[in-house]
């Protein structure tokens, strides 16, 4: 045992000596002047430079490959997105085509019915003139609305609640309905060469047959107040606040009724046979700046047909 231990110690003697020598070398290196160390580092850097350049090239290639792969995946994702969008657009296109076909068929049906109708409705856009515009026209003797009826021109035109910038030049006639969208704002009462006076639904003297909730009929009257009054509606008719008041379809020539407003108050006096109904006009009291005037004309196709038949007879 003693011999074995001695052999082992002898076996480690050389490594220990090597270690001591290595440590001495390390100390010498640590104490080496900076200039010498720098020159050694310079040699090491020169030896490593080719490898560093190769590593940089490899890095660039890797970056390029990663970029290419990334862009490839992005392109694939974008392609999938575009395909999805295309699918959606095709579907939307089919829906729109169906809607267009439906609208076309409706238009064709309407055109067919127009051919048969005796009266046609045409709309002409007009601007509502403000007070300054009216005063300007008065100064130039252009605002002669009402001269036909012998009323003092300027007074009527300037004081009229609403004046629009179209008149006989667009073949307006009294009682043409003035609308804003599908809402009735009033009707023309006086027509001049280039201007017309409009009577709003709230003005005293305005009267029109109306339909309530698509059933009961009554007479709408302007009361000079923000609300209009509807008379001659029997108490047997079911009327409620919020019901829509429209033009009487049977009395007009439009396929769909126009809106006057909504009922805001319903009263009934004791023993009365008719409701007292108050309506909020659909067109605001200050009114829109641009309106459309509905003109009723004879259907030229029907007239031509009548003439042709008359000649044949």
């Amino acid at each position: 045992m003693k011999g074995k231990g001695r052999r082992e110690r002898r076996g480690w003697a050389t490594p220990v000596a090597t270690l001591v020598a290595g440590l001495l070398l390390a100390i010498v290196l640590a104490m080496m002047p900076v200039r010498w160390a720098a020159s050694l580092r310079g040699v090491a850097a020169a030896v490593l430079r080719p490898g560093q350049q190769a590593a940089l090239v490899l890095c660039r290639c890797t970056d390029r490959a990663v970029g290419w792969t990334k862009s490839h995946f992005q392109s694939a994702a974008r392609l999938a997105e575009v395909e999805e969008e295309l699918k959606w657009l095709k579907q939307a296109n089919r829906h729109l085509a169906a809607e267009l076909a439906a609208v076309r068929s409706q238009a064709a049906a309407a055109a067919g019915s127009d051919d048969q109708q005796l009266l046609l409705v045409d709309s002409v856009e007009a601007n509502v003139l403000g007070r300054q515009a009216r005063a300007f026209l008065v100064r130039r003797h252009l605002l002669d609305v009402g001269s036909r009826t012998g009323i003092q021109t300027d007074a009527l035109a300037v004081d009229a609640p609403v004046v629009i910038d179209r008149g006989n030049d667009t073949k307006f006639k009294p009682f043409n309905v003035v609308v804003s969208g599908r809402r009735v704002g009033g009707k023309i009462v006086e027509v001049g060469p280039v201007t017309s006076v409009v009577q709003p639904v709230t003005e005293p003297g305005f009267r029109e047959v109306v339909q309530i909730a698509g059933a009961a009929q009554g007479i709408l009257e302007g009361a000079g107040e923000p609300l209009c009054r509807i008379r001659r509606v029997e108490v047997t008719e079911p009327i409620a606040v919020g019901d829509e008041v429209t033009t009487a379809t049977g009395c007009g020539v439009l396929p769909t009724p126009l809106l006057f407003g909504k009922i805001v108050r319903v009263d009934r006096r004791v023993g009365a046979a008719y409701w007292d109904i108050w309506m909020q006009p659909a067109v605001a009291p200050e009114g829109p700046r641009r309106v459309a005037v509905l003109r009723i004309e004879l259907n030229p196709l029907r007239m031509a047909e009548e003439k042709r038949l008359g000649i044949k007879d």
Partner: protein
Amino acid sequence: MSSRRWYGGTNGTVPGVDVGRERILRTPMRLLILTLIVYTAAVTETSLVDVTRIGHVTPDLLALTAIVYVLMANHPSAFVVSGLIALVGDLIAPGHLGVGMGWMLLLGFGLTRLKRHVPLEHLAAQVFAVLAAVSVWAAAVGLTGRVLGDVSLPWLTIVARSAGVGLYTAGVAVPVLMILGWIHEPHLTTDY
């Protein structure tokens, strides 16, 4: 020195093979491979720091090479090679030369002695050895650099970063040690 130790394990003896001739044939090849590995590690440490960095910590590939060499080689003077590898690290790093080399010589010598008493064949044991050795070496080098004025970081920061370097390097060591284990496995299991 027994020739079988050059085969990378106590069970690496291959009966019937001319061990001396094998050693002569293999030693230059091993040196060449080791030089290439050290060169690659040095290039990686100097060129790809930004790629390998996690926070303030990068793996010390040269220290890893040195420690793994000591773990794998059964030569009693293997620590000399590890010291030389550490010297390469000193040459590419700022500060005094020889500091990393000296500490690696001491550490390698200690590991060589430790291997005689503690079995380090298992992967987990080898990874732990790498973790401990690299952490201790990095801390020793950092603290020495602090004493010599090469490093201006606080003491605790140096220790903490050394632990981080050890951990990161041990993580990198896992696949390396697995591959080396697979390379050595046929020699261990060959039965003639």
